[in-house]
């Protein structure tokens, strides 16, 4: 208690008188390090800490790193930096370069792990009272990493002075960590365990684990309980992270499949060139970015937003041409449509290969799509985040178009009863063409998003075509909600299988599961009911 009071008084005086010239001059103490053995050095470090002089921090850091040397001629201690064959000697307090000395003229001051630990906590104590907020925060974290009873008083003193909320919370935790290592009472320690638990995550488990062997038998139960709770918490976050990855994969699947849900699901056209529409969308993004790079680099962050309508138009027009040129002759012959569109996909692939070359094209990420942020116990990358939001909004927009607009109404009418719709005055060929163009355009938009996370090459579409069909068939043909549920559940299922069986086997299992599922429900999750089914 007396020790505590004395150091408190010391620290208070330090704080009042600034932080530089409070106690004794630290230079003789540092110089004494040159001749000290390990035990003496530890005592000296305590005295250096007691000076409360923040200027000693670089010297102590150098000592911990093994860069502190004593000059043989006069025993003065310097920080030494290698400069060619010689050492550059730097004054430990002022940081000024004094001279260059040969290797023989200086002797390294020995250091061991115990001293390193002492240095770390000393430094922690020294900087806990720094006027700079960031320094204080770093210091609190340093204390947390090396818990020791000696720090306890320092940090409690610092806590009283602390007014910044975030720093204070960190210091509370640092105090709890040190407290566990000290010989305080059971009740205080119990509170400390609670504080550490609130820290959460793996570091808290590690702290509690290291404290476990030395702890009071009375606290054992509390400690184990806290560890268990932290671990189950961690497991929950793991699940959450998996779900997030799954949703992210699912949203990619959704993007790729949603255009198909219109052409295949609504119109009944097996469009094997769908993947190539996605690919063309990605290449449109590439071209837009190239144009922006050369003409208006300041717009680069907007390139994706510009690419979305461009890709929609380009692929929509390509789709329109395909529908008018080939597919309209093949209505009612789904297997032939499949073959013809496969042929189209080969031609499109080869055209892109001839124009842009077979190699991957580099599509840049705008600044708002790179990086990540933590969310509880998981990390969320911005590009995945945006893609999820993007695909959901595309889905909703499409749903609104189908359900609320007159074009959607005509589309549904033609799907349900072509002849009746025609006799009501709907121009069915026109609706067919526009619907196909819409589906293709959506695929193009998907390509814009996929260009951010996948290689933009002529084979881009091939990678998605089978998955997209799986999603549409699994979700149920002719039902946009089915596509949404199908895509997200397949994505999550994939990510949950991955850790246990590996990515490839997981994918195979998902495919097998879908094949089995189709046996059970040949029309998918959300099957259309009624006569349309047998058509």
């Amino acid at each position: 208690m007396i020790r505590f009071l004395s150091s408190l008084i010391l620290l208070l005086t330090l704080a009042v008188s600034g932080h530089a010239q409070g106690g004794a001059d630290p230079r003789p103490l540092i110089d004494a390090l040159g001749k000290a053995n390990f035990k003496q050095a530890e005592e000296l470090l305590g005295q250096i800490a007691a000076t409360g002089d923040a200027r000693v921090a670089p010297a102590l850091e150098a000592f911990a790193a093994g860069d502190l040397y004593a000059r043989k001629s006069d025993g003065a201690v310097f920080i030494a930096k290698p400069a060619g064959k010689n050492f550059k000697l730097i004054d430990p307090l002022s940081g000024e370069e004094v001279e260059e000395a040969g290797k023989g003229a200086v002797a390294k001051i020995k250091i061991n792990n115990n001293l390193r630990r002492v240095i770390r906590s000393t430094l922690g104590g020294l900087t806990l009272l720094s006027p700079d907020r960031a320094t204080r925060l770093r210091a609190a974290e340093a204390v947390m990493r090396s818990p020791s009873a000696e720090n306890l008083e320092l940090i409690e003193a610092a806590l009283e002075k602390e007014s910044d909320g975030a720093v204070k919370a960190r210091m509370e935790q640092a105090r709890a960590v040190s407290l566990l290592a000290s010989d305080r009472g059971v009740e205080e320690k119990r509170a400390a365990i609670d504080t550490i638990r609130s820290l959460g995550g793996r570091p808290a488990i590690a702290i509690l684990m290291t404290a476990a062997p030395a702890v009071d038998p009375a606290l054992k139960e509390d400690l184990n309980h806290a560890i268990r709770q932290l671990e189950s918490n961690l497991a929950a976050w793991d699940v959450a992270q998996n779900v997030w990855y799954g949703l992210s994969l699912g949203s990619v699947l959704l993007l790729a499949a949603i255009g198909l849900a219109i052409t295949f699901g609504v119109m009944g056209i097996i469009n094997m060139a769908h993947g190539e529409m996605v690919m063309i969308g990605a290449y449109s993004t590439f071209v837009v970015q190239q144009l922006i790079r050369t003409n208006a680099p300041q717009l680069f962050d907007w390139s994706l937003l510009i690419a979305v309508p461009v890709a929609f138009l380009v692929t929509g027009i390509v789709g329109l041409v395909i529908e008018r040129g080939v597919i309209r002759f093949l209505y009612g012959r789904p297997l032939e449509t499949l073959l013809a569109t496969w042929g189209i996909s080969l031609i499109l692939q080869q055209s892109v290969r001839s124009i842009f070359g077979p190699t991957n094209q580099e599509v840049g990420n705008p600044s708002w799509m790179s990086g990540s942020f933590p969310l509880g116990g998981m990390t969320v990358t911005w590009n995945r985040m945006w893609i999820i939001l993007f695909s959901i909004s595309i889905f909703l927009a499409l749903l609104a178009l189908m359900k609320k607009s007159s074009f959607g109404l005509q589309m549904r009418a033609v799907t349900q009863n072509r002849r009746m719709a025609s006799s009501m005055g709907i121009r069915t060929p026109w609706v067919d063409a526009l619907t196909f163009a819409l589906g293709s355009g959506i695929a193009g938009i998907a390509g814009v998003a996929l260009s951010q996370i996948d290689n933009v090459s002529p084979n881009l579409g091939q990678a998605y075509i089978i998955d997209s069909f799986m999603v549409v068939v699994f979700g149920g043909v002719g039902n946009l909600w089915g596509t949404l549920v199908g895509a997200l559940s397949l994505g999550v299922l994939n990510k949950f299988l991955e850790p246990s069986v590996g990515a490839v086997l997981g994918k195979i299992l998902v495919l097998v599961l879908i094949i089995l599922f189709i046996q059970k429900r040949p029309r998918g999750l959300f099957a259309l009911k009624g006569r349309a089914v047998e058509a």
Partner: protein
Amino acid sequence: MITSFVLRALNGRITITIAILLAVAALVPALNILVPPGNPFHIPTYAVSLMGKYLCYALLALALDLVWGYCGILSLGHGAFFALGGYAMGMYLMRQIGPRGVYGDPILPDFMVFLNWKELPWFWYGFDMFPFAMLMVLLVPGLLAFVFGWFAFRSRVNGVYLSIITQAMTYALMLAFFRNDMGFGGNNGLTDYKEILGFSVQAQGTRAVLFAASAVMLALCLLLASAIVNSKFGKVLVGVRDAESRVRFLGFRVENIKLFTFVVSAMMAGVAGALFVPQVGIINPGEFAPANSIEVVVWTAVGGRGTLMGPIIGAVLVNAGKSFFTGAFPEFWLFALGGLFIAVTLFLPKGIVGTVEKYWQARKATRKASETSRGGDVLTAQPQAAE
């Protein structure tokens, strides 16, 4: 009964085709071996192997035609059966390498030594015996087709749904065979063969025999397919293709009919794969690629589905074109193939043979109309393509 089954198969054109195939089986090896290299009639060995490859593809297309052209099941996974047959043959050939591999292990193939495996996986047992391997060439694709078809046809998955899940099947198999720990050589597949039945795989004589075997096997399968198609069962088969529900209501077990045809077809594809592998010298997971299976569909479509000769003609023509194009204008092959897909579906829905047949029928009909003197001579009903 069996004689009548076979005899019915031998209508005029089939007999001629089989005769041609047998003649080719004898002639090409003869021109390769007996005629000296300088002679204009000499066929070089590489060409023999190339033609042998075409014949294997023709057999594969014939197998597909049996299910697609006559039963209406568009399988986009026939490449999987072909590849499985090929792998069974490849496993036999790998076991024949014995201690002559790079690592010289008498039992383990090189890639297993490379992966540090200590013993042969159980599914490689028995493949050192040729008869067992040949049995597997039939059984493995047959079994897969049986299990797959059993589930699919029983739950009445049909049309494009079936096509899509067969595609998923071959895709899943491709991913699986790419894995090293499957025990089939992973990415590189099985290659570096030395001997088949004690004869060097590279030797001119072996190549010629393999070619002859392919031609004879194609003739045999053509006979079998013709027998199936021209039997009573074949009539029901076409009925299933054109009006499945009606055939079901007439009391036939449609799923069993489909299952039988699917399994027979898968076995034929397996045989084609087994003949393909020693002539090409390698089998790798790329053979499972969905694109390959779709290409088989286009050979069949070009030649004419629902005819027995069509797939053979289509496979040979398209592949000869592919060899020519990929040699002469490599960039244009995909344009040509893609254009072929579109042109055939738009303008030649019955394929070459079907179109020619239609033309002949139309001519015959007009001639018959002009000389009304003679009756009879009714054409054997040629199955029409499902619309």
